[in-house]
């Protein structure tokens, strides 16, 4: 990076040892990427809330009754789905890429793990997009469609939300194992976030039950099948994103300390003390 103007020079960050941090652009993107996870939770969760589709109606509802209800809240659904598209597609994409990048940078540098994390994150974002598109199409045509076709589209929204669980499980468990690996420096991701990821990944499995039941806690609107994986996934993104945002300065400082150790071995005593050797709080 060249320092052409004084303003640009001012924008460059100073590390705690007084050195100029040359990649403050990267730092800002990491910071924004972490925040985009928090934004995803608020916008995508808010989108579903605003759409009036929550709580989900039972799969055994009569098609005519469901179609009449959906017709009543048509514009609410369209606005909610718009928010789901912004949150579900855009912010899940930026956040999942940031997570994959930071896992590689601070936890485990396996290129294969990075690749799988990027692809599973992309899959998650595409699923969010499909929910939004199908929900919009359903609301768009609700007044002229046959009620059982409307119900099929309604089923599709929730099936998309729930039953493509395997890549989500892979995403969360791989994140968990990368964090628990010995290579993890624990500056960004403390070990408890690894166990937390494994827990959230395990719960994805409940979604698989939703195709077998038409009512009760294991159907697609059920307390176990819908709310457990749904809430745990949102909680996972929120907790990880908060950790990413809050620990970013510390993690970067420790990394800068490490690279300066390689060049000037006696220069990093101050930064060494910043490293977090144990499972501390966020």
């Amino acid at each position, binding site marked *: 990076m060249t320092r052409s103007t004084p303003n640009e020079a001012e924008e460059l960050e100073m590390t705690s040892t007084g050195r100029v941090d040359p990649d403050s652009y990267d730092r800002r993107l990491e910071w924004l990427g972490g925040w985009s996870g928090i934004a995803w939770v608020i916008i995508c969760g808010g989108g579903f809330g605003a759409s009036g589709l929550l709580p989900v109606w039972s799969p055994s509802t009569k098609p005519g009754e469901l179609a009449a209800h959906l017709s009543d809240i048509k514009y609410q659904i369209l606005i909610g789905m718009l928010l789901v598209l912004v949150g579900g597609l855009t912010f899940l994409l930026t956040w999942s890429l940031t997570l994959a990048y930071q896992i590689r940078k601070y936890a485990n540098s396996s290129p294969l793990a990075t690749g799988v994390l990027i692809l599973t994150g992309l899959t998650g974002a595409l699923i969010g997009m499909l929910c939004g598109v199908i929900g919009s199409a359903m609301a768009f045509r609700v007044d002229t469609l046959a009620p059982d076709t409307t119900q099929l589209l309604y089923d599709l929204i929730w099936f998309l939300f729930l039953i493509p669980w395997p890549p989500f499980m892979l995403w969360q468990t791989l994140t968990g194992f990368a964090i628990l690996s010995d290579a993890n420096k624990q500056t960004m991701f403390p070990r408890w976030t690894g166990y*937390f990821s494994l827990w959230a990944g395990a719960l994805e499995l409940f979604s698989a039950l939703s195709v077998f039941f038409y009512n009760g806690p294991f159907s697609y609107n059920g307390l176990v099948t819908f709310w457990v994986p749904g809430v745990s996934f949102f909680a996972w993104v929120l907790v990880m994103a908060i950790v990413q945002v809050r620990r970013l300065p510390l993690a970067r400082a420790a990394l800068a300390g490490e690279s300066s150790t390689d060049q000037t071995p006696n220069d990093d005593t101050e930064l060494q003390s910043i490293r977090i050797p144990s499972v501390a709080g966020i």
Partner: protein
Amino acid sequence: MSATTSGVKGDGVRRLRRIPAEPGIWVFAILDMLIFAEMFGIYGWYRADHYEAFHAAQSTVIPAFGLAYTVILLTSSWLVVLAISAARRGALDVADKLARGGLALGVSFAVLKLIEYGTKLGQGITPVTNDFFMFFFVMTFVHLLHASVGIGVLVYMRRRIRALSPGVSSDAKSMGVIETCGIYWHMVDLLWIVLFALLYLRG
């Protein structure tokens, strides 16, 4: 490892209360048990609502199976405790044998469970037969998945025990990993005891 688990003996420093194993596993165990608690609560709700139907359906469950699982898992957990304590004092051969015993019992639990599912399905009883069997199959199957992961965890634990140096007191880090595996297995055991009481005992 947390600073609170540094069990250095004779260092003259007042020791903090030690958290068994790695603190992170407790995050997993407590959150996981909360989800089971939610399922138990919903089951209780449904059972209270349809008491007669649940009671009638429950009479077709064979309590001997439930009792056998309970004995198997409790014994297995006990062997794992003994294995960990043997590993800690450096008696690795004993620890390995005990861990193998715990593992064999874990596998026999899974096999017996599949046999029970087979008999139920053979009688035409499936998860969609009625609400009781919906809960019966789903909750025991989710538990069986936990047990299957647990079998993998015990295989890993045994490998870690065999990797210790014989005759010496084990280092804190390896013991932490081994204890973490043990705690997962105890959680499987604990969840089973609640399932046994809810599904196999007629109240």
